[in-house]
C-alpha cells in the first residue's frame, strides 16, 4: 500500500515551503520591485532594526530582504534548470543506450563512465572558470556532473523493462520497436529518474552555492551562495549576513528532499513500513 502523496505530513511540510519558495521566486519582481543589487541604505544595518529594511543591509548597503527574495529566484531557477538539463540529457542517453545495445551502448556508456569518474565539482569548477560564470554556464556546469545518474537509471530501467512480459506481449501483438521504446517503455523509465531529480535539484542548489562561494557565481544576479561568500568575511562581526542566506539555503534543500522523498515513495511504490 502506498499512501497518496498528499497524505504524508513531511511531504506537506516540504511542499508548503517549496511552494512558498517558488511563489516568492516567481513573484520576486512584484514583492521586491527594482534591482535587488541597488544600494538601498546605509551599509551593514543589522536585521530587525529598520522597518524599511527588515533584514538589514549588506556591506554595500543593499537590502538583504530584496537580495534574499531575488536569490530564491536564482536558486530555484538554477536548481530546476540544472535538474531539467541533467534529467533530459540522462534520459536521452540512457534510453538510447538501453535500446540500441551493442557498440552504440558500449560507446555511450563509456562516455557516461568518463563523466562519472571525474569529480563533478572539479569539472564544474574548470568549466565555469573557463566559460565565465553566467547563470547558464553554471546550470550547464552543474548538469555536466549530474546527468550520469539519470542516464544509468534510465538505462537500467529500460534494460529490465525490455525483458518484461508486457513488452513481449506488445511484440507478439505486432507493435513496432519504436512504438514499444517510446510509448511503452519511456514513460515507465521516467519515475525512478524523476525520483532522483529532487536529489539533483537539491544538489544543484548546493553546488551553485559552493561555486558562488568560491567566487564563480554570476555577478549580475543575486545568489545565496554569493551572499554567504560575501558575508563570510564578516562572519564574526556581522554573522547575519551569511546566516540568513544560509538558513534560506538549508530550508530550500530540506524541503526539496522532503518532497523528493515522498515523491520517490509514491512514484516507485516504496513505502516506509
Amino acid at each position, binding site marked *: 500500500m502506498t499512501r497518496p502523496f498528499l497524505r504524508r505530513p513531511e511531504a506537506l511540510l516540504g511542499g508548503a515551503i517549496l511552494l512558498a519558495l517558488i511563489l516568492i521566486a516567481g513573484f520576486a519582481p512584484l514583492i521586491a520591485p527594482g534591482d535587488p543589487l541597488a544600494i538601498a541604505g546605509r551599509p551593514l544595518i543589522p536585521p530587525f532594526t529598520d522597518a524599511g529594511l527588515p533584514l538589514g543591509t549588506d556591506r554595500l548597503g543593499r537590502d538583504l530582504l530584496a537580495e534574499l527574495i531575488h536569490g530564491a529566484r536564482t536558486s530555484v531557477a538554477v536548481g530546476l534548470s540544472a535538474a531539467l538539463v541533467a534529467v533530459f540529457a540522462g534520459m536521452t542517453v540512457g534510453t538510447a543506450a538501453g535500446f540500441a545495445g551493442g557498440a552504440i551502448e558500449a560507446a555511450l556508456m563509456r562516455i557516461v*563512465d*568518463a563523466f562519472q*569518474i*571525474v569529480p563533478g565539482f572539479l569539472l564544474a569548477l574548470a568549466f565555469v572558470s573557463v566559460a565565465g560564470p553566467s547563470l547558464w554556464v553554471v546550470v550547464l556546469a552543474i548538469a555536466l556532473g549530474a546527468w550520469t545518474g539519470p542516464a544509468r537509471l534510465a538505462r537500467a530501467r529500460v534494460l529490465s523493462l525490455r525483458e518484461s512480459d508486457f513488452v513481449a506481449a506488445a511484440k507478439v501483438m505486432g507493435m513496432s520497436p519504436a512504438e514499444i521504446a517510446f510509448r511503452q517503455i519511456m514513460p515507465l523509465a521516467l519515475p525512478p529518474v524523476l525520483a532522483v531529480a529532487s536529489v539533483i535539484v537539491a544538489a544543484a542548489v548546493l553546488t551553485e*552555492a559552493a561555486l558562488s562561494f568560491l567566487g564563480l557565481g554570476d555577478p549580475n544576479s543575486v545568489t545565496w551562495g554569493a551572499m554567504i561568500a560575501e558575508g563570510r568575511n564578516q562572519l564574526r562581526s556581522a554573522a547575519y549576513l551569511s546566516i540568513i542566506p544560509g538558513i534560506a539555503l538549508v530550508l530550500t534543500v*530540506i524541503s526539496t528532499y522532503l518532497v523528493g522523498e515522498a515523491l520517490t515513495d509514491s512514484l516507485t511504490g516504496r513505502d516506509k513500513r
Partner: protein
Amino acid sequence: MARLGRVVLARLAGSVPVLLIVLVGVFLLLDSAGGDAVDAYLLSMGGGDAQMAAELRTRYGLDGSALSRLLFTLGQYARGDLGWSIALNRPIGPVIAERLPNTLWLMGSATALSFLLGSALGVLAGRRPGSLLDRVLSGGSLFLYSIPSFWLGLVLAVVFAVQLRWLPVSGIETIASGKAGLARAADIARHLVLPVAALGMIYLALFLRIMRSGMAEAWGQDFTLAARARGLPDWRITLNHAARNALLPLVTMLGLQSAAMLGGSVVIESVFAIPGFGRLAQEAVAGRDAPLLLAVILTSALMVVIANLLVDLAYGWLDPRVGSGAGHD
C-alpha cells in the same frame, strides 16, 4: 593473489579508453578558455611587454597547435611522465606526489568516519523504522544533509579553532615543526578533525539514510521474517541478517560517491587552507595550466577508478553471489 592482480590490471586497462575521453575533453575545455598560461603569468608579474609575452609563449610551447600540444602531453603520459607545470614552474610528478596524500587523508578519513558512523547510526535508525530514535536520527541526518559543507566548515572553524582554540584553524600540519613519526601523525590528525567533520557530515547523513532505507527494505524481505520464525535474538537478526544485506547498497553507493567526495574536498580544502588536489586544480585553472589540470584530473579519475575497484572487491567479498569481484558489473 595473482588472480586478484590480474583482475586489477584488467580493470585499469579497461578504464584507459574512458580516461582518454576524459583527458581529451578536459584539454579541449581548457584550450577554449580565454587567456592562456602566459596571460596568467603576466598578471602575476604585474605586467610585461608584448615581445616578452611572445618569448614566453615560445618557451612554454604555447605557440603550437592545440592538437600538437595534446599529442605531446599524451605522449608524455605514455612514457610515464606527467610533464611540466607552467603555473608552478616545476615538474608535475612531484607536485602530485606532494598534494595527493593530503587529499587522500582528508577524503579517506571523511569516508571512513561517515561510513562507519553513518552505517552504525543507520542500523540504529533502521532497527525500528518509525520509532522515536529513527525519527530523531532521520530528521537530524536530513538536516545535516542540507547544510552546505563550506558553511559548516566555517562555523566549525570559528567555534572550535578561533573561540575555543581546541584545534588548529587551518593547514594540514604544523608548519616546519620538525616533528616526525607518531608526533607528526598526531599533529596531522589534529589538523584533520575539523575539515573531516565538515566534509564527512553530509556523507554521514547520506550513508545513514541509505543504511536506514536498506534496513527498512530488509525488514520487508522473507529472510528476516524467516529469521524471526527461527527464534533468533533481535540483535542477531538486526546485525547478521538485516544490516548485512543493507550494507550492500551502501557499498555500491560508496563507489558511486567517491568522485563526489573528491569534488567536495575541493571546497573544504579552500576553507581550511589544505594544500590538496582541489586547490591544485583551482591553481591549474587560474594559471591556465593545461598539463597540470590534466594531471590532476587524470590522477583523480584514477583514484576514483581504484576506489570503485576496491568497492567491487569488497562487494564480492560481502556477497557470495558475486564472483571474486571481477564478475560484478
